[in-house]
């Protein structure tokens, strides 16, 4: 059984259909990259999987760990091990980063039938995870993302991922707005978290990120449909030839 199976997924936003029949299988231990030009539906796909209410699924199925993902609300998905790293992480003034993570981690642990972590164990876990993403400990006591630079926000997303240890992570344009140093640190963090026990979907416009996080599979999403799938070489070819190349090839095939 696949970890995630998306079958003929159609989804609309404000009455406009954005996804026109996505098919995708992700197995445990795999890293998939979904590439596509602006407006192709990449972020919509990530949003549908995470449970954004604005996206309406009009057709198709998503099976996650044998369960109907689309029936779960966002918090249930998270507790079942799904994680979305936001393209634009949200600032939450007045809510301390570590307080927030404690509430999140304990909600997930409770769901798994585990005991809540006490303050001391939780703090040592946090400190250990900050090292993984090379994040300054001072960020723990700051309000979530408030006043963080673009790079710091993305790093904080990967830090959350490190603490919550999801089964399936969806990284939505995690590379956008990052300079090369930040990109390296964030990628290294993701690579360290990569294991045989989890899977990752990387949503990106550019091949750049994939130099650092090498995917097992690459899918090209154009106009709401996956038009081409392949190995990591596909990403390199895309970078050389551009998305028009896939578009033309698809037209010819039709």
């Amino acid at each position, binding site marked *: 059984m696949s970890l995630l199976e998306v079958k003929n997924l159609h989804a609309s936003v404000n009455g406009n259909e954005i996804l026109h029949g996505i098919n995708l299988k992700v197995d445990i231990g795999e890293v998939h990259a979904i590439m596509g030009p602006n407006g192709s539906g990449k972020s919509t796909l990530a949003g549908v999987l*995470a*449970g*954004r*209410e604005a996206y309406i699924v009009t057709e198709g199925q998503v099976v996650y760990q044998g369960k109907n993902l689309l029936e779960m*609300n*966002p*918090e249930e*998905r*998270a*507790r079942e091990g799904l*994680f*979305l790293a*936001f393209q634009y*992480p*949200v600032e*939450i*003034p*007045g*809510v301390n980063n570590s307080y*927030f*993570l404690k*509430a*999140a*981690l304990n*909600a*997930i642990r409770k*769901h798994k039938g585990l005991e809540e972590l006490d303050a001391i164990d939780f703090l040592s876990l946090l400190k250990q995870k900050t090292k993984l993403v090379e994040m300054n400990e001072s960020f723990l006591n700051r*309000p979530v993302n408030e006043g963080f630079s673009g790079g710091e926000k993305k790093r904080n997303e990967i830090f*959350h991922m490190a603490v*919550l240890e999801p089964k399936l992570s969806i990284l939505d344009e995690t590379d956008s707005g990052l300079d090369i140093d930040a990109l390296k640190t964030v990628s290294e963090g993701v690579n360290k978290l990569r294991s045989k026990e989890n899977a990752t979907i990387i949503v990106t416009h550019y091949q750049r990120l994939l130099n650092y996080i090498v995917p097992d599979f690459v899918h090209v999403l154009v106009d709401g449909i996956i038009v081409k799938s392949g190995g990591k070489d596909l990403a390199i070819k895309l970078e050389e030839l551009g998305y028009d190349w896939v578009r033309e090839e698809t037209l010819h095939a039709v």
Partner: protein
Amino acid sequence: MQSVDKNIQWYQSRFEAFEQSLNGEKSTAVHTLRRDAIRRFTQNGFPTTRQEEWRFTNISPITKIEFQPILHYELHGITRDDIQKYILDGAVHAVFVNGMFSSELSDIGTLPQGVVVGSLAEALKKNPENVQQYIARLVKGEESAFTALNTAFVQDGGFISIPKDVIIDQPIQLLFIASDDDRPFIAQPRNLIVVGAKSQCKIVETYVGLDQNTYLTNTVTEIVLEENSHLEHDKLQIENMNSFHIGMTQLQMNTASHYLSNVISLGGSLVRNNITVVLDAEGSECTLNGLTLSTGTQVIDNHTAIDHAKPHCNSHELYKAILDGESKGVFNGKIFVRKDAQKTDAKQTNKTLLLSDGATINAKPQLEIFADDVKCTHGATIGQLDDEQLFYLRSRGIDLAAARDILTFAFAGDVINRITVEPLRQQAERMIHARLDFRQTGIIEE
């Protein structure tokens, strides 16, 4: 109109009865103040929504009831156990039952030499000249009917006098308890606070209703801050939901004095808080913060007025409201900058969170600036919980109800965290959590 007139007659007759009970005290200076005040009250009557200052707050529920003025102290069987949870850890506390000082329930402890914390009635007896030089002098200018009514029946309340050069770390609490009673009553504490030059202290006013009876608290606090003094003045209002609360705080600030006010309003069916500050000496600075948390059909109105009369004074203001149910909030923030008040720095922020469709807010910043070299800003926002923030929290595993609580609490925390009296901050935090949990579970645990 007729019922209003009837109401004036009611208080007039109560005043006559009060006067008869006074005997020899009738010739005192304080009684002259009372007589003047009842005359002004009778002339002007209660305000209506036709008056600009009361446009958004209809006080007719108050004028319909004949509240019995409290003329004598009675303990009403209240024990320390009944009030223990309202007393702040480590605070010197003067306790008042229906506006009258209770020596049984108070614990003044040991204070630095010259510091007086206790009853206004006692201060009037012991040292009338000292009290008379301050009392009713500050509030006269823009007096409301309620302040006049308070002055007409003035007898007791909190009296705090700090000589110069004294720094008191221990918070001083004035705890006002409303007892249960068969008849609706009006408790009218009159508080006077004088902080001497270069002195510093923290004073907390707490207003509590012990039962579910109907009463009116009509309180007036006058504050004098001498040169270079610092005062933190916090007010926690948790009257019962059948009661009414009208509060007036009036300040006189001298050179380079600092005032910090945090007003937390949780209780009462109809509440009006007035704060009037005159920055009448150079280098003085005031910070006024407020938080309203209301539900049901509560009406909570905060009126602030800051008068920048002299140059080089600063004022900061942050008023927030979290409104649920069918409740109504009012914020009216006046800032005057007089012609001579150059180099004024005034900032006003007003933010409201509406948790339900039925809740409403009237927010009215009112800036009148006559000087040209000043920095004045104001901003008012009204909104609901942010969907994107809610989704972010949920996408990390936090359920919708908890996510709403976290965000609502964060909104409140912005004000609560400005309270430096730690036991009060914690108490307010607990009460707000209890209120928010109540939304989820229907159970209040304090």
